[in-house]
């Protein structure tokens, strides 16, 4: 299973929409805590949705390095690639 970054980005954006109460235009540089004003608990809830959407484990340990939508996207791509290597 390989998925390109753009697809992953789009999928993640659609998962973010329900949390995007201020209707911010999403880009790779959108910062969760600043631009979307999400607190850490909400980011964890979003992360849970991403886990289920892509059927991967995204450890909480990664969160400090995941501040933007782009960083989330890259992390998911990397985790998906690792999964397919294992198979």
């Amino acid at each position, binding site marked *: 299973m390989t998925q390109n970054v753009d697809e992953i980005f789009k999928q993640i954006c659609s998962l973010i929409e329900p949390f995007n109460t201020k209707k911010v235009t999403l880009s790779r540089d959108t910062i969760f805590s600043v631009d979307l004003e999400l607190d850490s608990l909400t980011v964890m809830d979003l992360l849970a949705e991403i886990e289920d959407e892509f059927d991967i484990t995204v450890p909480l*340990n990664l969160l400090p390095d995941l501040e933007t939508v782009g960083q989330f996207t890259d992390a998911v791509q990397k985790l998906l690639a690792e999964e397919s290597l294992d198979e």
Partner: protein
Amino acid sequence: MTLDLFEKFDPILNDYNGLPEGEANPFTVSMEKVLSPTTAIINGRETILAGTNNYMGMTFNAECMAAAQEALTSLGTGTTGSRVLNGTYDGHKQLEECLKKFYDTDYAIVFSTGYQANLGVIATLAGPKDYVVIDADSHASIYDGCALGNATIVRFKHNDPENLDKRLARIRRNDPEAGILVVLEGVYSMLGDQAPLKELTETSKKHHAHVLVDEAHSIGVFGETGRGVAQEQGVEDQVDFIVGTFSKSVGTIGGYCVSNHPKFEALRLVCRPYMFTASLPPSVVASATKALELIASTNLRSKLLSNSMKLNNGLDQAGFKMGTTGESPIAAIIVADQNTAIAFWGEMIREGVYVNLALPPATPNGLNLMRCSLSAAHTLEQIEFMLEKFTLVGEKLGLLQNVSETALA
């Protein structure tokens, strides 16, 4: 230019500076005198303590106080040492024996607080190759135990066995051999809801995970002999580690972990929050030991839960939006916005009722709560007084809903 280390706190200080001044500020309150487990003098007024987690009213128990006094006089004010150096007295060992008897387990380790018990057990048991899987609504000490250790941390949806199952299956798919510790709480302290331990332990065991249950808010409160929710739900044999605290039902301070794992004692050699802090003072050890004996031999649970049911029903009938049902010792009113919650708290303390103002992120789902924790020591009159004051303030703030015609007439 060098950065001021405190700059990062500016947003929170701004919020803080917006709080009401004087006695309505929830962060400046102190008790001038404590009269009993349920009353104190605050701002010169006799005040009912409605949110102390002093479930059994054990803080002024005559036998516990006598045991503490006797230990204080004969052994001094403190141990001035860690359990692994000069800080283990016979009393600490007796307390551990008492815990083993209480839980009917092979092993017990006492920590200096429940917070440290969670830090120590979680951070130490789960190493770099292991996983800790935690409930989304876990207490701060569980999250901090995860942060202190080196394991991979995965979070599942609060009290949702299916969501847990999915996450454990994913972990196993990639890592069939990994050690996994699932961390649960018997009762979640904000809304008083119990974990469905039967389903959650069954799911965990299906994936060969170890299970830790934090019974901080359930010791003394649930189970035939007061061991907590695992006992209440009949799943003690499915639970590998129970963590608890002496700071609530037991009426003093301290934490513990009990287990039947044959190598459990190894923790004393490797668990840093156990090793690198001073042990509990003898007076605390003595009162905790006595309180455990009392909890096992007396049944205050029905009194406590009937108190809680009364307050919960009364608040519900008054027209408050409730977050709790009275099945636990917690009664929590949901308040729509934070400023109203803060004002509510201030009015209540002026009326002589000290409740917990509980705000996110300490609460689940971003809820603002006026949280009470009942005590078996509360009298009916005190509960009626609380209800009267809650209703008075709720009316004043316009928080009462669905008041039926008959109630208005």
